[in-house]
């Protein structure tokens, strides 16, 4: 097939070499200079990546298209007209309504992420320390919601949080409340659904880092007289920081751009960036403005992603040092 020699051929011992030596007369197996071999390996790698690159090219193209559309102008009567202006971004920043939505998106994402950390860390800790059937059960509980249709989860929360839903009916029939908590279509219901949606993304990275911590470090701490809690504070917690950082950034990025929770549990009343984009896109048909908002959201995500990659690499180095 003319494919280049594969790198691990070099690692073969001298005894094995005759077996893999080129068949006489086969031109493709003739020994080549290291430089040629390296170039051919690069080419093979790029060729293998090509089909994937085809699909990712559409992602790149989407972003390029959004960036281009965001520079177009828009008129309520005429619709979109080609232009090269930054006025969409200018409008977004100068208008207090849009600025407010942006800040509210960040605030909600922050609240959701912090609550998820508080709920998720002890869970991840327990998961990492347990074993056998308990561990498998805890893992199953985290992973099943992760894979379940996001609409199914939203539907479940609609039933739970509604004015005549399970929580409110229980409170009223128990005599705790006279009238229901109006949670549905408020920030509360959006936040609850979002926490549920992102909690696995907090638990799994933290648990992964906690499991990699050498238990002899904890034992050493306890043997030296530290209490269990001291050991946790001085050894386990600091060593799990990379996991916390990775989980926090991942959760923040996911909740800042979440779409289903504000759409279904917010009922369109909790305006965040994702809903704003959808409204501008499908209702007002102001595509340039929707495109500008999308680019802002992408920029925010990419900044977080950059730090996420650095955080997970930090975790990797940490592990290698052990």
């Amino acid at each position, binding site marked *: 097939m003319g*494919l280049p020699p*594969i*790198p*691990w051929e070099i690692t*073969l011992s001298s005894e*094995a070499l005759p*077996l*893999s030596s080129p068949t006489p007369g086969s031109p493709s197996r003739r020994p080549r200079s290291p430089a040629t071999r390296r170039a051919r*390996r*690069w080419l093979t*790698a*790029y060729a*293998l*990546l090509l*089909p*994937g690159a085809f699909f*990712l090219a*559409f*992602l790149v*193209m989407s972003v390029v*298209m959004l960036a281009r*559309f965001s520079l177009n102008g828009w008129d309520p009567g005429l619709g979109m007209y080609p232009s090269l202006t930054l006025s969409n971004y200018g409008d977004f920043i100068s208008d207090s309504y849009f600025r407010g939505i942006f800040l509210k998106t960040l605030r909600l994402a922050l609240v959701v992420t912090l609550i998820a950390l508080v*709920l998720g860390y*002890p*869970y991840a800790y*327990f998961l990492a*320390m347990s074993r056998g059937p308990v561990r498998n059960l805890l893992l199953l509980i985290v*992973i*099943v919601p992760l*894979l*379940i*249709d*996001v*609409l*199914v*989860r939203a*539907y*479940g929360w609609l*039933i739970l949080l509604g004015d*005549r839903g399970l929580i409110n*009916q229980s409170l009223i029939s128990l005599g705790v409340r006279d009238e229901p908590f109006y949670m549905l279509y408020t920030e509360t219901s959006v936040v609850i659904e979002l926490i549920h949606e992102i909690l696995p*993304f907090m638990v799994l990275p933290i*648990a*992964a*880092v906690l499991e990699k911590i050498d*238990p002899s470090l904890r034992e050493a701490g306890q043997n030296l007289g530290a209490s*269990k809690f001291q050991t946790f504070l001085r050894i386990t917690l600091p060593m799990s920081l990379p996991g916390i950082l990775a989980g926090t950034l991942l959760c923040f990025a*996911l909740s800042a*751009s979440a779409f289903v929770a504000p759409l*279904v549990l917010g009922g369109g009343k909790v305006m965040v960036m994702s809903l704003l*984009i959808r409204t501008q*896109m499908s209702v007002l048909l102001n*595509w340039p403005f929707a*495109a500008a908002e*999308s680019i802002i959201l*992408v920029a925010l*995500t990419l900044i*977080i992603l950059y730090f996420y990659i650095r955080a*997970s690499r930090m975790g*990797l180095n940490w592990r290698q040092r052990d």
Partner: protein
Amino acid sequence: MTSRTVTTAAAVERTSPVRKSRRSRLDFGGVLLRIYVALVGVFLLSPIFIIFLTSFTASESVEFPPRGVSLMWYERLVDHLAGRSGTKPGLSNSILVSAQIGLVVAIIAVVVGVLVAYALHKYVFPGKEVFRNVFLLPLMFPQLVIGVGLLLVFSEYRWFGFFERLVLGHVILTIPFVVLTVGASLEVYEEQLEEAAMGLGAGPVQTFFLVTLPLIRQGIIAGAIFAFVTSFTQFTVTFFLYSGATKPLPMWVYEIVVMSLDPLLAVISILLIALTVVVVVALSKLVDVRRLFGGR
């Protein structure tokens, strides 16, 4: 399988002595931690639990307490699937559309993802880290933006039909899963077997198909299942790319969920959840799922 047994054995070995010596003392913190973890678990499962209860209601709508227990909504689901009169149309068609898209997506994502994972595992080349991050990017990239962006692309260039556009969008989202599952398999398989095959005179292509692929089949199957389920339940990207004639199941469900809390949706949800649980159990037999999210 082997690595899993080894890690559990190691875990037992290293934790048990400490545990035993502390067991005797009353562990107040440990009890509190257990209660807390149990409550978080309840929180995670509560929507599933309530959907399960709702699916057996005898009421015409979702209400508490329900009028009684019955299987009437399961019967109505059968009516809907059979397309009887008086039911909301299009359910069986939507399931079919979703299944077809999911199948095509799984096949494409596996072929593409295996090649990418293999290249990233086997070769050292300029820009490798950049490529790795780019192929994992859709995991964190706002799905809404992918949907809106593709909508703009296809409004400008009228390529493909709606079915192909949905497949394209879903493949972008699912490539990372295959890259991760197959990558995890590649990390633990025994490279010496490849060397042995080469040593016995097999060419690189022969070795790849006859030795490497069978060795990483667990990662491939896991990736395919992941891709299918992700596509089958995908909402956000689908939302911007579907049409009335090509309406996947999540869109059919969405059109009802914005109208009312129809208990029929609880029955559909239960079936989707059952599918998911089967998939998770199958996945946990195939790969260490935590690797997909924890390690890079």
